[in-house]
């Protein structure tokens, strides 16, 4: 995984995401989820291209069910964007890069 993407867990979520100064996109994923794997390379690209504006973190729902439950994540991939620790945008399902950039425009402009 690129250094530009952080891994968060139930234990580190609040500190990492809540304490961030910029918007943080959290990718809720799992090993057995095909569509999650499809979007992973795209997220790595976005993380590099928009460094400093939008941080990207990954949370494995298999190992960290608490955080997934807290934010009512019932499908993966789900991408939740947090600002000041609060979820402000929810994207569900695999999307192409063009669509993702459009959906995330307000955070990376």
């Amino acid at each position: 995984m690129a250094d530009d993407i952080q891994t968060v867990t139930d234990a580190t979520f609040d500190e990492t995401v809540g304490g961030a100064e910029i918007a943080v996109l959290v990718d809720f994923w799992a090993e057995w989820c095909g569509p999650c794997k499809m979007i992973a390379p795209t997220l790595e690209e976005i993380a590099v291209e928009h460094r400093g504006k939008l941080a990207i973190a990954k949370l494995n729902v298999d190992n960290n069910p608490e955080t997934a439950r807290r934010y009512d994540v019932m499908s993966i991939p789900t991408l939740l964007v947090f600002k000041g620790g609060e979820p402000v945008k929810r994207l569900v399902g695999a999307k192409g890069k063009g669509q993702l950039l459009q959906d995330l425009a307000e955070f990376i402009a």
Partner: protein
Amino acid sequence: MPETRELVIVGSGPAGLTAAVYAARANLHPVVVEGIAAGGQLMLTTDVENYPGFPEGILGPELMGKFREQAARFGAEFVTADVDRVDFSGSPYGIWVGDTEYRARAVIVSTGASARMLGLESESRLLGQGVSTCATCDGFFYREKPIAVVGGGDSAIEEALFLTKFATKVTVLHRRDELRASKIMQERAFANAKIEFRWNSVVEDIVGNGCVEALKLRDTVTGEVSELEVAGLFVAIGHDPNTKLFEGQLDMDANGYLLLPSAGSTRTSVEGVFAAGDVADHVFRQAITAAGTGCMAAIESERWLEAKAHAEVAAQAG
């Protein structure tokens, strides 16, 4: 204008990748625009038990991984992004992926089909929060919870069976009084104690705020409306062809499937553009038929390119 390629293949399910194997072996150096949903519908399944050559069955994603590997081995080139626009009005045909333009003498369209939705406001509102189209992705979240699957075909029954690993109970909702699914899948479903059937039932609404709490069901015979408490709804009511990209450029039927004017051929309404797999097949829709038509499309592309090259040489000599 960019370099003109012999062949661009749009889509990377069994049809596109089989076309890629054949085209690469024929030295057409195909570019496969595999799309964000690379691998197609099989990427969302578990065991594939009816693809010949795998007597013990094989996982859908694994099978597609093997297809891709085989195409790559013979030199197929992959672009992992969606096509944004095509122009089939004149040869060489234009294909745009973001800002990158490809030009090709021949094109194989194998963009497949995607899950159809019910079309309810509550469905889009609760998508990802109790409404799902992918049992293998989301079954995990419904451990020890009651859920429902809407649909009556093979994919609905396969999802229902898979979901019994997690859910306390799986109710299959079907608008008719019998299933369209294959006999073997039906038998498995009827034998599974966790699966219950509600015949002649349609989903009128999904109740819940932030999560699914219940479904409003209407009996199509009596008209009676009832509520079913579930934590999740899996939608498996069929598929729609992915042909929006080709509107106004390729002829299609009322349901959006590409029309193939001559029987036994993968030729579309545009010369040099071929179609393979579910994008032009609403009848069989199997991995093996998609692979078969992918092979046909590659061979037809090769012959068409050859004939065209001959004609051009003859014209120059003329």
